[in-house]
């Protein structure tokens, strides 16, 4: 009997070992590179991964955090070295560039049924941010909108100034709000993409466009952009209501200085609440966000955009992934209706929702009452358009930034500065 018992034990053990090793073999690893984002978001994604892994014993998702500032060089070198992950999450602006390099997998071709079923949950404007040439490459979680004006309520109440709604009023308000203790306004103006996006948002609202409608001509030297740039230049150089170091102050420094009461107004995207949540505010500090004032006479040739949008944490699949099905399961998991509510205000404050589920959360209504009102009327995001994105944009926007800064530094008038860089960009566009 002893012998049989022993044998049985061995067989059982062997079975167990075999079973485990098969399970391990069957378990597929999905690697995500997560570019940017805030601690609260990382925590939330990690939770999603945990529940997903528990729910899918055959799949193991691993998240690696990557620096936002070095995203393009990291991806390019990984692409060349063939060490790409399976999924990435980053901004939608880069989609055309990445598609042309062959990096992204067309989700609408690979999973047509799922995509068709999912599509209606998103607002169409948002859904299209993840598409390029009629194919879907990215699924959005939230998005950021520009331009927004955030203002210190206490300072406004003390001076009795009303919220500016036109450019002239903005200049007047900024002049009155400039004191020894604080500046009137800060516009972020480094060469960073985010800062330029904010400015491009203002120019789009003034009827300017980066490219013409056909997409074959660079037109940012038109009056829409030039007048918007003149506004920046006036605030900075003529009225001196912005800090002398404006060209080194980026979007993040703008918010930090605003939250520490060094400026009465600040210009940015929709992420002020996120930053406030992250670094904390002083006691008694109260702020509000408002749409950026308009030019009373829209000077650009194109329709005025109410806002421009960029899906900054969008999930995309890498074309070389060997576990596309499993990776897709995870994308579906982080963008389920329940998850989308979390992205929109429940766990992550201040980002703009992209789906109906997101728009219906109370937390979102609290931060963006106006947007929700429009949504209920069925005109949400009306007039909002996507950040320009086409192959070569990353390179062109840097060159555009040089024109932008040279006007701010007083090297040339806004018109001359933009004319000079338009030529360079046009050449690149024709080369693409």
């Amino acid at each position, binding site marked *: 009997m002893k012998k049989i018992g022993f044998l049985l034990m061995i067989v059982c053990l062997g079975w167990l070992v075999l079973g485990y090793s098969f399970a391990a073999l069957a378990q597929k690893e999905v690697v995500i590179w997560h570019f940017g984002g*805030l601690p609260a978001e990382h925590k939330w994604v990690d939770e999603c991964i945990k529940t997903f892994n528990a729910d899918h014993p055959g799949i193991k998702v691993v998240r*690696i955090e990557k*620096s936002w500032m070095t995203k393009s060089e990291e991806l390019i070198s*990984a692409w060349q*070295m063939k*060490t790409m992950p399976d999924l990435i999450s980053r901004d939608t602006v880069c989609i055309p560039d990445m598609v042309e390099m062959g990096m992204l997998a067309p989700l609408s071709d690979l999973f047509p049924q799922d995509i068709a079923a999912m599509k209606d949950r998103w607002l169409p404007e948002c859904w299209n941010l993840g598409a390029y040439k009629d194919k879907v490459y990215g699924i959005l979680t939230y998005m950021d909108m520009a331009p927004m004006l955030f203002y210190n309520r206490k300072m406004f109440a003390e001076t009795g100034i009303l919220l500016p709604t036109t450019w002239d009023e903005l200049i007047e308000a900024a002049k009155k709000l400039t004191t020894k203790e604080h500046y009137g306004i800060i516009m972020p103006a480094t060469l960073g993409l985010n800062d330029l996006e904010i400015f491009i948002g203002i120019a789009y609202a003034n009827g300017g466009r980066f490219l013409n409608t056909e997409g074959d001509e660079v037109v940012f030297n038109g009056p829409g952009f030039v007048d918007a740039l003149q506004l920046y230049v006036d605030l900075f150089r003529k009225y001196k209501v912005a800090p002398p170091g404006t060209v080194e102050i980026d979007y993040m420094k703008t918010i930090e200085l605003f939250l*520490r009461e060094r400026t009465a107004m600040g210009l940015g995207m929709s992420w002020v609440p996120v930053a406030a949540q*992250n670094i*904390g505010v002083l006691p008694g500090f109260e702020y509000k966000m408002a749409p950026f004032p308009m030019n009373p006479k829209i000077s650009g040739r194109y329709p005025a955009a109410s806002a421009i949008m960029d899906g900054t944490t969008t999930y995309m699949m890498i074309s070389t992934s060997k576990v596309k099905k499993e990776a897709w399961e995870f994308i579906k998991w982080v963008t389920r209706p329940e998850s989308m509510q979390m992205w929109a205000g429940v766990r992550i404050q201040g980002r703009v929702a992209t789906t109906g589920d997101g728009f219906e959360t109370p937390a979102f209504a609290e931060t963006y009452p106006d947007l929700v009102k429009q949504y209920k009327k069925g005109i949400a995001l009306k007039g909002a358009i996507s950040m320009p994105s086409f192959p070569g944009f990353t390179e062109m926007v840097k060159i555009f930034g040089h024109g932008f800064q040279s006007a701010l530094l007083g090297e040339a008038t806004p018109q001359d500065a933009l004319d000079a860089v338009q030529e360079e960009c046009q050449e690149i566009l024709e080369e693409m």
Partner: protein
Amino acid sequence: MASLAYGKKFAIPKKIIIALVALFIVVMTLSPFLWLFITSFKHYSEVFDVPPSLIPKTPTLDVYKGVFTGEQLGRHDPWPLFFLNSLIIAGGAALLCTIIASFAGYGFARFTRLPGVSVLLLLILVSQMFPGPSLLIPVYSTMRKLSLDNSRLGLLILYTAFALPFTTWMSVGTFRNIPVDLEDAAKIDGCSRLQAFLRIVLPISKLGMATTALFAFLISWSEYPFGLILLKTQSKHTVAVGLGAYLREFDVFWNEMAAATVMMSLPLVIIFLFVQKFFVRGLTEGALSG
């Protein structure tokens, strides 16, 4: 104050001048380090105070705890592992570099009549100029062809290559200073050239070799761009690459970065306080022996 009575009349002002200059130098040199040190004890929200507070209001050690355990604000950087990686890569490069440079230095100092020796030495001297960001793309393609990308060994060899020109040249200087008679005496005793080199010459040039090693180590320790491009897996990252990851979208966690910097540099700083004397002497014997 006792020195007042003993010194000559002009000795006192001179002392004070020296003290002031020394203080100025120390402050200038240490200011960023000091600032990082102060910041590493601040809470995250205090980091953004305008104007910045010169002394932490409510000092905390939490940041250090986070860096130590790999549980930072929204990140999981295994700093002890990064430190180990850096130690392996920089230490390995230093070792390899010292061995190769010592042999080569000896060779260039002794075998002066071989054909093409001066051309080779010239090549080494000139190549000293190039290991910089201009080589980033070509080196990266070369490493890929050799399958040395995304590998700690690859980076180790690369850093060795970068440090070799200067260190070879340093050791040429060291060995030229060692009289040939010593080896000749050894050869009479029946040693081969290699034995004479290993047993007699190397021990005398210990100091020069240590300097070589230290130089290679420090160069490799702080190199950033090649590490960033060549190491793709987080578990292989070096300290410099890990610190570079603090360049971020929304939140530079200055206090955490400061704590990480302090913790990662402190061991080296302490070591260097002790070895600088030898380093100076080693330099005298090696690169500077004209």
